[in-house]
């Protein structure tokens, strides 16, 4: 059965606390901490972007997969913050890891589910036998306008998955996709920051699609919430994935390990794939896992995964996600954060 052969994640070291952002804009930090369950978020260094984080996550996935990069037949990067408007991020990633030139390469966009889209397509090509291995990456240096509610959550991180049919560490048992035209969040051409529909992003968008996708894949596969050891949902904040899990009937011990957003923030395309990487870091052989992404616009991809005996062999071959999240953090004040994110510029 096809599945994940290797995985890797990358989280920048820099962080900013919710209080530091609230202090500048005169907003109530407690409302974000209690209402949306956000404490702090990751911030990319000025020399980090989707390409650099993707390369680091991919190199870690290769360390766990222990395959030659020339065997990778597809490199797909899902993001809504590709550094180039025209020129694929994936070409740089493929070149940097040594996968070129016989490789199919494409960038994916679908708001926050671009990463699972990449996984979905790479998995399909592997299943069809068209390629031996496929590399799917979910990465973002998320944008949030100064003072906007998104600024409290928009974060940075990447997760990479190598899919194949040999030496599989996590079998993919089923996939499912649910999609409608729902304009809850968007960014028009040439605009730097996204716009959103406020509370419209909740029930008709996030919850309708996330719950429908989870229910759809469980119905098709004949599974129930109690069958799963872990469940990971898209996490635009700390509250939404918790509510989605509760509405579906999952218990805290099933979703807590895959919910990174309270201290990571919303890594957009990276969000649910990074939650999966944290779960895989501690999963035992035979664990059944539900992964449900969400992308504004809107759609949701569902995956049912089961770990094999090989998961124990690969967990320690690269830095784990939680250690990157919790260790050696470097906190920023708002001024430095604004400089790092290009929100203030030095005069020419």
């Amino acid at each position: 059965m096809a599945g994940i052969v290797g995985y890797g994640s990358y989280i920048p070291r820099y962080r900013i606390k919710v209080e530091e952002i609230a202090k500048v804009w005169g907003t109530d930090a407690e409302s974000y901490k209690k209402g949306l369950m956000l404490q702090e978020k990751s911030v990319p260094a000025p020399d980090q972007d989707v390409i650099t984080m993707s390369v680091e996550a991919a190199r870690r996935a290769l360390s766990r997969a222990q395959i030659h990069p020339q065997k990778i037949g597809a490199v797909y990067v899902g993001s809504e913050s590709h550094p180039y408007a025209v020129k694929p991020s994936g070409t740089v990633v493929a070149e940097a890891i040594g996968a070129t030139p016989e490789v199919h390469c494409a960038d994916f966009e679908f708001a926050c589910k671009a990463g699972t889209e990449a996984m979905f397509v790479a998995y399909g090509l592997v299943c069809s036998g068209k390629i031996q291995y496929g590399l799917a990456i979910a990465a973002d240096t998320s944008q949030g306008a100064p003072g906007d509610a998104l600024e409290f959550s928009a974060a940075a991180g990447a997760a990479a998955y190598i899919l194949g049919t040999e030496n599989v560490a996590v079998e993919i048992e089923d996939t499912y996709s649910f999609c409608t035209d729902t304009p809850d969040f968007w960014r028009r051409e040439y605009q730097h920051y996204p716009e959103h529909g406020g509370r419209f992003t909740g029930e008709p968008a996030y919850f309708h699609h996330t719950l429908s996708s989870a229910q759809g894949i469980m119905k098709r596969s004949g599974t129930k919430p109690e069958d799963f050891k872990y469940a990971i949902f898209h996490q635009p904040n700390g509250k939404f994935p918790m509510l989605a899990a509760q509405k579906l009937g999952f218990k805290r011990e099933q979703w807590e390990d895959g919910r990174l957003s309270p201290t990571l923030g919303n890594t957009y395309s990276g969000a649910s794939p990074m939650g999966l990487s944290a779960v895989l870091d501690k999963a035992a052989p035979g664990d059944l896992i539900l992964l449900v992404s969400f992308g504004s616009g809107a759609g949701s991809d569902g995956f049912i995964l089961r770990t094999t005996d090989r998961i124990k062999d690969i967990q320690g071959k690269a830095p784990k996600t939680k250690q990157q999240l919790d260790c050696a953090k470097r906190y920023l004040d708002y001024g430095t954060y604004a400089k790092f994110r290009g929100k203030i510029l030095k005069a020419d």
Partner: protein
Amino acid sequence: MFPAKIWREFPQRYRLEAAKCKKCGKVFFPPRLVCNACSHREFEEIKLPWEGTLVSYTIIRTPPSAFSDQAPYAVGIIETIPGLQITCQIVDADLDKLHIGQKLLLEFRLIQKDGKQGVLCYGYKAVPIDAHNS
């Protein structure tokens, strides 16, 4: 930055590809056409490890214009394999805690941008080894 110039450097900047003389074993980074130790012209491609030891460093406080936003920043000489040293920026580090002999990892980073419209130049920079990445 002319795109062709940085394109020629991808094997070194992206993958740390070096050349090892097939006759005397001396390693060159970047590669050379002729070994300066034995004048041999055949080389084996090897990849340097993405880690090394800090041999020396300096703090740049008056940078070239392309790096003016980053000052002060550290540039170090790092030994990746015995006898072979590379030079690069050291980032994500407290400048007052850098020390000779320190173990460092190399990470893939953005080196510089060619203005607002030009090509992006990527390559390696060094970061401390700690609980975040070990």
